[in-house]
């Protein structure tokens, strides 16, 4: 039926979205392709090719990820006799467009007509597909080159098959669009006609591959391809985590311990059992904190529909033992963090003599910045469906790491990973929450215990109460200036409970990946720099949220730049450029124990202040930095390198007489190296501005008596359409030759809050150092 290699049942079975609707595409430049061929009088000019060795090859950290990279075309590509090309998407779609972008790279390189491409979602199987952990803004940067190699291999095999059929040297055949052509005779064979023969050939060695000259790309970099699920999304057919329905399925909602580390003492199911539709109430196993992604435990209500399960859960009477975090209180904890950053802490970077230079400085400017816990609240709350059959577990779930989920399922169920199938549905948002598979483990354990298919649905309240929260942090920066106003000393203390505390008990210092997000990698041209990380104990589950520690760090550093500008009576953009200094490669400080460069080799992904300067200059120009603004308006600027991309943002605010804040305009410049789908980069920047405004204006999760005080979108609000930035303009820096791809999903977020607060200062003279802003501007 299909060739190269049958994708296997896992890829094509199971989830709702693996139906024939997959791969439906609109706005494809299909007519353009045919038109192009016609304009050439029916001749199909083959793309010019470059040997792989001629390509600016670059090293990435992809190979160092668990299970590395697989570039076998037989794993990713199959061609049916009718010419339909099926390409596997092995990473998770949560809104970035990756399920479309990676297959599009393969299609472009192999010469496939996008209208005849279908996309199928891979199950979790990293031995087969390579790393699938969709996180860290890594997909394009790790897979642009491997996907091109897969496409080039497939094309080479098709060409070889054609040459053999025609008994001509392979050098005489070329690939057009979805067909192979013989130069001399003009004979041509479609991909479908060649698939069976091609599948019998050996896969060419990577060194022998010839890759397209980027000038010949038809899809990559054009921004003309819409996401593959677009029609299904607009018609309600797209399949998310809760859309899988199995015969005999039970609907489950769980009451979990309200305090992290707490446990259930006793429960009374009587009232819950009276709710129509409720079939059973039972205790479910929890693991002691911290336990990575293991379930919290509690009491499950099993019903014939989700509504009944929710109603039953609300009727439960449960006595909890709150455990060691029963006193966690955000007001008291904030004071602890602020005290911590006012005293010396663990030194994590030390260049020159910042202590001495601060003592002898002409002026010292001190800024203390606070950012509270944040919740992900993706529109789709955590949910998973599981089925246990004859010792085998199959799940359907919106997970960022289907491979990791499979391994955690095998470990938790104490079965072989070979007996675990993880089907990845579309994710209704992820932002890092769905990297943690606790909700899938809950469903799997219950499915086995009940020996029935189950769906565990988290309510919004469950999501807010039991998130893996963004940390809470205090950042204190002291900048020492000499008589001329030049910054000669910089001491940055950052205290925040660490993600490490979710994996290891009593972890109190941030781990390298957190320190490397805007603290120890601070690129300013300052002689004396000292960074410290005072202790901070965790009292809840700490996780990663889109752009992670870069949020508080960029907020502190980029606010401080504007504070220095104000103190010295200078333009904030000029001070920013002066601090960045001349275009150069900034080495990681020798004083840093474990430098973190987002897992990438510094040779291909150095800290390049030329690129950092460029996005500042570009966005300032595009935003009209310094232009005359109406009364009550102000502009602020900020820049941040994260996920090895460079992003600068200018925010324009308007503040009325009552102190009501609106954002008429946002301008963002991004340099993410080589890129695949600029239209989706633009949508990521638009979304980052909205999320950035939510963070800055209203985002706060707080604790009292160990319990999260918020529950839903009423008390944990996010920005709505009537308060969103009116316009976000995106400027994508064209990649210089040889610049490898970097990240786009996360790095738009960090510069937003400081640019906003700098704009507020420009408009009002009020400096916001504590987020969220909430009513701080009220007059």
């Amino acid at each position, binding site marked *: 039926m299909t060739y190269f290699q049958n994708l296997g049942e896992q890829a094509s079975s199971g989830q*709702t979205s693996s139906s024939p609707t997959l791969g439906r595409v*609109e*706005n494809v430049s299909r007519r353009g392709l045919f038109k192009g061929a016609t304009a050439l009088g029916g001749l199909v000019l083959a793309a010019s090719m470059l040997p792989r060795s001629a390509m600016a090859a670059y090293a990435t950290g992809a190979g160092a990820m668990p299970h590395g990279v697989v570039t076998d075309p037989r794993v990713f590509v199959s061609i049916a006799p009718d010419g339909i090309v099926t390409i596997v998407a092995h990473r998770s*779609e*949560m*809104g970035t*467009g990756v399920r479309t972008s990676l297959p599009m790279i393969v299609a472009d390189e192999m010469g496939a007509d996008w209208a005849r491409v279908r996309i199928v979602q891979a199950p979790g199987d990293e031995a087969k597909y390579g790393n699938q952990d969709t996180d860290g803004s890594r997909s394009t940067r790790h897979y642009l080159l491997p996907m091109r190699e897969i496409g080039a291999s497939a094309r080479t095999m098709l060409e070889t098959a054609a040459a053999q059929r025609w008994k001509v040297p392979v050098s005489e055949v070329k690939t057009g669009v979805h067909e192979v052509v013989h130069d001399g005779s003009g004979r041509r064979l479609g991909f479908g006609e060649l698939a069976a023969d091609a599948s019998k050939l050996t896969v060419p060695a990577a060194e022998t591959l010839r890759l397209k000259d980027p000038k010949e790309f038809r899809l990559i970099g054009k921004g003309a391809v*819409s*996401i593959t*699920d677009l*029609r299904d*999304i*607009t*018609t*309600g*057919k797209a*399949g*998310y985590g*809760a*859309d899988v329905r199995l015969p005999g399925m039970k*609907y489950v909602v769980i009451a979990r311990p309200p305090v992290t580390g707490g446990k259930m003492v006793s429960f009374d199911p009587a009232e819950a059992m009276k709710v129509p*539709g409720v079939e059973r109430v039972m205790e479910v196993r929890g693991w002691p904190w911290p336990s990575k992604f293991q379930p919290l435990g509690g009491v499950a209500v099993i019903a*014939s*529909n*989700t*509504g*009944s399960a*929710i*109603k039953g859960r609300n009727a439960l009477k449960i006595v909890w033992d709150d455990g060691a975090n029963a006193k966690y209180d955000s007001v008291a904890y904030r004071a602890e963090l602020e005290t911590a950053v006012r005293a010396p802490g663990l030194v994590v970077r030390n260049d020159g003599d910042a202590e001495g230079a601060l003592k002898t400085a002409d002026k010292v400017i001190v800024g203390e910045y606070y950012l509270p816990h944040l919740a992900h*609240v*993706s*529109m*789709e*709350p955590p949910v998973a469906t599981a089925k246990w059959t004859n010792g085998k577990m199959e799940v359907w779930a919106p997970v960022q790491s289907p491979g990791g989920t499979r391994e955690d399922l095998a470990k938790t169920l104490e079965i072989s990973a070979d007996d675990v199938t993880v089907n990845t549905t*579309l*994710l*209704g*948002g*992820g932002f890092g929450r769905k990297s943690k598979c606790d909700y899938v483990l809950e469903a799997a354990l219950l499915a086995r215990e009940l020996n029935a298919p189950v769906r565990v649905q988290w*309510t*919004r*309240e469950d999501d807010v109460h039991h998130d893996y929260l963004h940390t809470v942090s205090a950042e204190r920066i002291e900048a020492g200036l000499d008589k001329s106003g030049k910054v000669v000393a910089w001491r940055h203390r950052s205290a925040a409970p660490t993600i490490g505390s979710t994996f290891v008990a009593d972890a109190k210092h941030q781990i390298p990946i957190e320190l490397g997000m805007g603290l120890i990698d601070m690129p300013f041209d300052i002689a004396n720099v000292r960074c410290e990380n005072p202790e901070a104990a965790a009292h809840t589950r700490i996780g990663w949220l889109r752009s992670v520690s870069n949020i508080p760090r960029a907020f502190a550093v980029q606010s401080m730049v504007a504070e220095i500008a104000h103190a010295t009576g200078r333009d904030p953009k000029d001070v920013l450029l002066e601090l960045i200094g001349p275009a150069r490669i900034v080495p990681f400080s020798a004083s840093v124990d474990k430098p973190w460069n987002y897992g990438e080799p510094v040779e291909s992904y150095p800290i390049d202040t030329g690129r950092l300067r460029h996005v500042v200059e570009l966005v300032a120009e595009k935003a009209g930095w310094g232009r005359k603004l109406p009364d009550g308006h102000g502009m602020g600027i900020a820049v941040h390198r994260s996920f090895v991309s460079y992003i600068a943002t200018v925010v324009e605010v308007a503040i009325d007489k009552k102190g009501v804040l609106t954002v008429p305009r946002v301008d963002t410049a991004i340099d993410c190296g080589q890129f695949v789908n600029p*239209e989706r980069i633009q*949508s990521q920047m*638009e*979304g*980052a501005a*909205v*999320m950035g405004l939510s963070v800055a204006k209203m985002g706060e999760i707080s604790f009292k008596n160990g319990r999260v005080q918020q529950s*839903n*979108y*009423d008390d944990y609000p*996010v*920005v*709505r*359409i*009537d308060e*969103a930035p*009116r*316009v976000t303009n995106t400027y994508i820096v064209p990649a210089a030759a040889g610049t490898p791809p970097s990240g786009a999903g996360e790095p738009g977020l960090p510069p937003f809050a400081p640019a906003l607060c700098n704009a507020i200062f420009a408009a009002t003279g009020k400096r916001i150092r504590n987020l969220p802003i909430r009513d701080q501007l009220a007059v």
Partner: protein
Amino acid sequence: MIKVKVNGQERSWDGDPSLPLLWFLRDELGLTGTKFGCGQALCGACTVHVAGGAARSCITAISDVAGQEVVTIEGLHPQGDHPVQRAWRELNVPQCGFCQAGQIMQAASLLVETKNPSDEEIRSGMSGNICRCGCYQRIEAAVRVAATGT
């Protein structure tokens, strides 16, 4: 026995009359295009049309729609080509897509009430629907395109 017409088809329910319409649609009828986002009418992901107007199915008891006509995203247009759906595709509105059925149902209802809404009316009419990905700029533009063609 509660009878309700869903996307033109007669349906009935003899369970708990207080069951939210959302769960009847999703779990009993398998119409999964309507999404659960908050359960408290705060996010609009569950928006459907009841008797022609937008309603939050997560807080609408099935007994409240007895004898009425309910339209979900699956029934908005037989081919999925309602002007709002087309505008959504033309402008590549969705990111993750989870909220979009609710957004589209809300926008379709807004355009029935106000044929050619101002920017202000679009923003106010759509302010009950949250998009955590932040597609608002395109949502606003797409409602305008659906209304005016440009």
